[in-house]
Every structure is written in structure tokens, then in C-alpha cells.
């Protein structure tokens, strides 16, 4: 099993830490993982994206041109990464701020109203965990248990009390993902 994922959005949306939790969850399952961020001089506001690879085998290149799954959280990212999804691959996106909907016919497409749901949950910071949940639903490569462990590993001790809230958000994402197109 090898899953090659790109997560892309605005800086500040929690893209990098979502990737980190994914990667940690992979480690919990004794898999090989790689987490490779884009980095640039813009500290805020710019786009941020991270490649996460979870695999049973030694990972060669951490820099990819094609992905199994793209999780995109704004229009720029959709513009850029839609075409980089492998045929038969998966796109998960938040429609908030999306002005041009995805057009590819050869991939699976899912929608998750992360922004709206986070507002509903009353905690904007859970946004990325909702998205993570959505992904987990369509790509159940990791168990919820591992994600919880991954969270524990990636959060500093003093934030562990936030884990239940985060797991609730994950569940919320799993529950609310909508199919746009399934092959």
C-alpha cells in the first residue's frame, strides 16, 4: 500500500499540521511516511501545501508530480492540483471560496463544507480536523484509533486535553462528506 497525498490551502488553515497528524498516524501503523512541505518567504496569507506519503515500503522520492489524493482548500490550490491527480484518484475539497468547480471526469470527487461545519462546531481551529475526517472516510487507510494516537504524538502534552474535541471534528468530517462524482 502506498498513498500519495497533497494537502493545499491558505497559510493558517492548518494544512501542515493536518499532514503531520496523518504522517504520525501512519507511523502508529508502523508504516513508512514522508511529509514534505512547500516553503517560501511568505509567512502568512500565502498558499501552503504539504505532500504526505504513507507506504508499506521504503519511500523513494518525497517530491511528487502526481498524487493519489488531493485535499484542496482554496481556488488557487484547486487550479494547481486538480490536474496532478492520478487517473482514478481522489479529490476532496471545501467549496468555500471556490468559484470554478472541478471539471475532471476521470477522478473521484468529494466535497466537505469544512468552514461552515467548523463555525457550527463553534471552533474555527477544528477546521483541518474536519477535513481530515472527510479524507478518512473516503480513504480508510488509517484507523480512527491511529489518528487519535497520531494526534497525541503531534500535539504537545499541554494540549492533550483538546484531543476529544479534535476527534469530534474528525467524526463530523466523516459524517458530512458529500459525493460529487464517483467512478
Amino acid at each position, binding site marked *: 500500500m502506498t498513498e500519495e497525498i497533497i494537502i493545499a490551502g491558505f497559510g493558517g488553515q492548518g494544512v501542515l499540521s493536518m499532514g*503531520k497528524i496523518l504522517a504520525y498516524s501512519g507511523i502508529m501503523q508502523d508504516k513508512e511516511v514522508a511529509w514534505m512541505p512547500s*516553503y517560501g518567504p511568505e509567512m502568512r496569507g500565502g498558499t501552503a501545501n504539504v505532500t504526505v506519503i504513507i507506504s508499506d515500503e521504503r519511500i*523513494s*522520492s518525497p517530491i511528487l*508530480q502526481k498524487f493519489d489524493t488531493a485535499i484542496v482548500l482554496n481556488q488557487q490550490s484547486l487550479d494547481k492540483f486538480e490536474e496532478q491527480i492520478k487517473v482514478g484518484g481522489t479529490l476532496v475539497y471545501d467549496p468555500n471560496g471556490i468559484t470554478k468547480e472541478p471539471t475532471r471526469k476521470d477522478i473521484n470527487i468529494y466535497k466537505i463544507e469544512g468552514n461552515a461545519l467548523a463555525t457550527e462546531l463553534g471552533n474555527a481551529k477544528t477546521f483541518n480536523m474536519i477535513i481530515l475526517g472527510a479524507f478518512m472516510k473516503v480513504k480508510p487507510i488509517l484507523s480512527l484509533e491511529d489518528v487519535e494516537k497520531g494526534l497525541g504524538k503531534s500535539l504537545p502534552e499541554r494540549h492533550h486535553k483538546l484531543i476529544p474535541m479534535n476527534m469530534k471534528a474528525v467524526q463530523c468530517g466523516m459524517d458530512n462528506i458529500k459525493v460529487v462524482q464517483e467512478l
Partner: protein
Amino acid sequence: MAEVRLMKGNEVIAEAAIRCGCDGYFGYPITPQSEVMETLMIRKPWEETGMVVLQAESEVASINMVYGGASCGKKVMTSSSSPGVSLMQEGITYLAGAEIPALVVNVVRGGPGLGTIQPAQSDYYQTCKGGGHGDYRLIVLAPASVQEMNDFVDLSFELAFKYRNPAMILSDGVIGQMMEKVTLSPYKARWTDEEIEEISGSWATTGKKANRSKNVSTSLELDSDKQEEFNLHLGRKYKAMEENEVRYEKISCDDAEYMFVAYGSSARICQKAIEICRERGIKAGLLRPITLYPFPTKQIKEMVPQLKGVLSVELSMGQMVDDVRLAVNGAIPVEHYGHVGGIIHSPEEIADALETLIIKA
């Protein structure tokens, strides 16, 4: 028990330094490696092992702090990225000239000039041929994984002290910024004053004890005969390194008819390219130099009889390819393939390049 963590390459450099008993780190922020110093500052090793961590006023200052600290026989290091390392060249040749063991980490980005902060491997010449003036060599280790970022810190110090020579870890933005699983090394105690006296007492400036004559850390020699003798001494030292310290990895080389030579992040991508080549029916293999200096010249030469061609794959316009050509010495075709400027080659491109530049050429 070994600790497994998910860490960035840069963070691991810091962690490995603390654990291997490093005495001091002196650095200056620059992308894409600032996490090295930031991690150290968060870790506060001065409270734990006594390691000194100082943000210097510049790279020129940090490399000279390294010279000062390392001249005391301490395990001292710095890290930077390409433009910062260019500024360190005078300091680096001083270290080599005074035979001071020390560690410099270069997390390479694209140049020339300010260039880009994205990954590159275009500092091979600077690192392996002497960016500074004079005849000298660095011991150069090229990690291809976060795990090797961990392992090579200790190894660099070991080699540096064995040969009284500065060592460099030549990494790049990919390895520095990516997170992977890493098994951290167990803690080693920092050397005590007595141990330093034992290991480096003949040269380290630890304060002149009554039982020895003064130690002087210098690269100056106004007498040309002595300077020449010193240069020849260095030459013999480098020869010894070439004989004893070459490190490399061979992947799928047993039956290979074509061979990639690539280090660091390029080597990882070549691994995938090998799979693609083999799917295409091309028997490709990879020789990954782990030490860039001393370079695996002999090991490449030994492969030549079974090969039809060699492709040097680098994130540069072609630098290491010189050393590959010198090793092959005209026996079979050698070509270079690489992206530059922060663009990373894809495995497919590499496989294609092997076909067009070597097989069909």
C-alpha cells in the same frame, strides 16, 4: 530503547548534535535550515548537557566562533545554507589550514547569488573542490534521508577528529524540510576536560599546562619549506581518507548495465527511476556516494567493466559528473542529467534521460 520520532531533517540535526555530545553550536538564520538553531533553542541543551548554543551576528562570525571553540578540542558545529556557506569560505579554509576538526552543515538551496530558497545540489564544486583558497579538502557526507541526517552528525565528528579536519554535511532543502521516521541515537556524554586532554591534548588550546609546551591553533607559516611540508602532510592525510573512508551504497547494481550516480535527494529519486527503467526492460542500478569527499572513484571504476554507460543525476548544471568522468576515465559514456533552480526531477524524467542521453546516444 531507541526512540522513533517523526521529525524534520533540520530538527534532527539539532537533536543529534545534543545526543552525540556536541559542545557548541554557533549559527545564523537562513532558509531552509533555520529550524536547526530554533530546535536547539527550544531544547535548551545548556540546561541538559551543557552544550552552548549561540546565535551569531553573521555567518562570518559563526564560522569563526566554530574555529575558536573547535580549537579548544571541543565538538563544535554550525549550519547554514548556500549564501551563508559562501560567506564562510575564509573560515573554512582556516579550519582546514589549522587542522581543526569541526562540523559545518549546508542545507543547499539554488543559486547563484540569492537565487531561490528551494532545494538544489549546486554547491558540490564549492564543497568538494574547495570553495576557499589553497589546497585543502573537507570530509563531505551527503545524507539521503532524515535518518542519515541523524546518523551523520556523530559520524562527521568522529571522522573530523580522526583526521583533524573539518567535515561538512551536504544536505539540501528536501532533506532538511521533510519529515520522516527517525530512530534517534542514544545519548553520549560530552567529553570531559580530561578526555579532551587525552584525545586532542597535543594541539587543543585548553590552557598551557606545565607538562606540555604551548599549543597554537594557526594556519600561518612564513617559511615556504615548512609550508610546503605542511601542504604535503595534508596531501598524505587526504590520501589516507581516500583509502579508508569512502562510503557509498549500491542499489540494484549486481546485474546493472547502466548506472546512475546520484547523492542525497537525487539518489532517492533515482531509486524510483530504477524501478521505471526495469519496467522498461533496462537494467539500471544506482551507486550513491555517501562520502562526496573522499569520492568513491575506485568503486565506480570497478563497476565500469559491466556497464554500458553512466548517468550522473544532480540538482545542478553538472558538477559531480566531473568526478564520475574522472573515475570512468573515458572507458564508457558518462553524461549528466539534472534540474536546477529548485525544480526537482521526476523519476520518469530520469529514466527518459538515461534512454536519450546514454542508451540511444
